[in-house]
């Protein structure tokens, strides 16, 4: 190929990329840099000025409420991540591997996705009549004679936040795992079976390792969403559970931009560590 035409092609793909790249730099990279920068600004009661200081950082780490929010975020993330994995994996195993017909598998996956066409916030709110004192679960349990008085801790507690988040995010775990399981060559499993391996052995030696990239992708999806949450905890805990996201919302609400930024930077670092950690387990580029 002649030199001028290569150059033209180069400038061609540059022109195609430039708008998107500029958009992301201006409206994604710059805002995140801004959060880091503003976290060192000086906060007065209602205003903020760009004199650099460590005050907000000191306030964050000396306050039990803020450090507590950090620990609550980590604890809830670990619990929800574990639950989405434990609840999601068997479902993915069935959809991705055990169902022989592709049509049935697709129908099941579509069934899992349909609830997402209801507004996220309304899906969260729908847990209230489900979990409340006079909620569906308490009524069912009482009718079945399993409990005498309604269970109070179901709603407006950490438990209700965990239940709500698990239900909303579990599908993001099922999808990637089912996808990886679907790509496993069935002949390998047949061969192992012919050689006399039991299901447990086949699962731990073949199926699970091959599905691991799916688990990692699902875990990254769930982690990113749970760590940045604030709506579910706000709606289902009655303000009892405060995550880093809730801190950011309340601080911005009272115009405490510097403190909100500190919480934002802490959240960003936490996310970075978590995602980098998952990517160390599996080299995604090689697997996919």
């Amino acid at each position, binding site marked *: 190929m002649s030199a001028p035409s290569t150059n033209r092609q180069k400038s061609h793909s540059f022109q195609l990329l430039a708008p998107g790249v500029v958009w992301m730099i201006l409206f994604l990279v710059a805002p995140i840099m801004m959060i880091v920068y503003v976290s060192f600004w000086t906060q007065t009661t209602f205003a903020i000025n760009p004199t650099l200081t460590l005050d907000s950082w000191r306030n964050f780490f000396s306050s039990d409420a803020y450090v507590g929010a950090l620990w609550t975020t980590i604890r809830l993330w670990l619990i929800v991540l574990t639950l989405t994995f434990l609840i999601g994996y068997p479902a993915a195993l069935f959809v991705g591997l055990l169902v022989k017909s592709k049509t049935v598998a697709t129908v099941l996956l579509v069934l899992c996705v349909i609830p997402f066409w209801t507004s996220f916030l309304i899906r969260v*709110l729908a847990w209230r009549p489900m979990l409340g004192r006079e909620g569906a679960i308490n009524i069912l349990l009482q009718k079945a004679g399993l409990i005498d008085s309604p269970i109070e801790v179901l709603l407006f507690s950490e438990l209700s936040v965990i239940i709500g988040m698990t239900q909303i995010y579990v599908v993001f775990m099922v999808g990637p795992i089912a996808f990886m399981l679907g790509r496993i060559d069935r002949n390998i499993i047949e061969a192992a079976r012919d050689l006399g391996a039991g299901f447990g052995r086949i699962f731990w030696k073949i199926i699970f390792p091959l599905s691991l990239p799916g688990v990692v992708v699902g875990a990254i999806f769930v982690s990113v969403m749970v760590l940045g949450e604030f709506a579910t905890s706000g709606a289902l805990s009655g303000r009892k559970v405060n995550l880093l996201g809730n801190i950011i919302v309340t601080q*911005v609400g009272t115009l405490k931009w510097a403190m909100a930024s500190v919480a934002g930077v802490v959240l960003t670092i936490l996310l970075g560590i978590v995602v980098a950690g998952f990517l160390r387990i599996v080299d995604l580029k090689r697997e996919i």
Partner: protein
Amino acid sequence: MESKIMKPVLAVYVGLFILFLYGPFIVLGIISFQQGPEGGPQFPIIEWSTYWYRHLFGMVPPSRIAPLPVGDALIRSLTLAFMTMVTATVLGVMAAQAFRKHFRGASVVFYLIVLGMMVPGVLTGLGISLLSNNVIGIDRNWWSTAFVAHVVYTFPFAFLVMLAILNRFDASVEEASWSLGVSPITTFRKVTFPLIFPGVLSAMLFAFTLSFDEFPRTLFASGRDQTLPLAIYGTFSVEIHPNIFAFGVLTTLFSFALLAVYGILMALSVRRAKRMAMQEDIA
């Protein structure tokens, strides 16, 4: 042997799993038919009625429960979702088109774009509101700051969908067109675009639905005028009534209508592609 027991057990499990996914949804549907205006958002159903649906459209006598402030919010959300859909899809198609040729820094650009869907909304929203509020000093609005935040979020989805489509794309038809002296722009319009149209439709569907339901970014980046999710969020702090559930049922039906339109357009474009292939065979 063991998998013979395993399969039915897991089938039952998947049934329960789907029930878990749909549980709140079913409850929401039932409670939306609660009697009004006294009936609250809980069981038991005092009497079945469509009161709360009529309440949404202002077809009931005024009561102490204010109607949901959704009229203007709905129009804003639809407009915003449409603007986002067009911008994100155009950016996504362009970027994916550029990725068909190898270039230096491709993986950096790839991660930069994908970052938009991975960074939590609360951070994008906070950053954009800091930038507009404290640095540039402009007002935040749903059609300006919230719009750019929505595109940051949906552009990666459109890009990934287009990338997947273009990866399976047979470039020889384009080369044929070029070698016949057709300009690259006409080739894109007449040859490439019709072939990638199903992907473009999917990218549009993604961008529209994600933007329509987007909440955390909008909460920070939009100003006084609320979009639909913000109007719903406004009801969180106060007492909730079954009208919000009736509204949830209606928006879900709207989403299905949107999905049906997508399905029809998709079927039409597949059929047209088949017909064109047949004509070629005859010729």
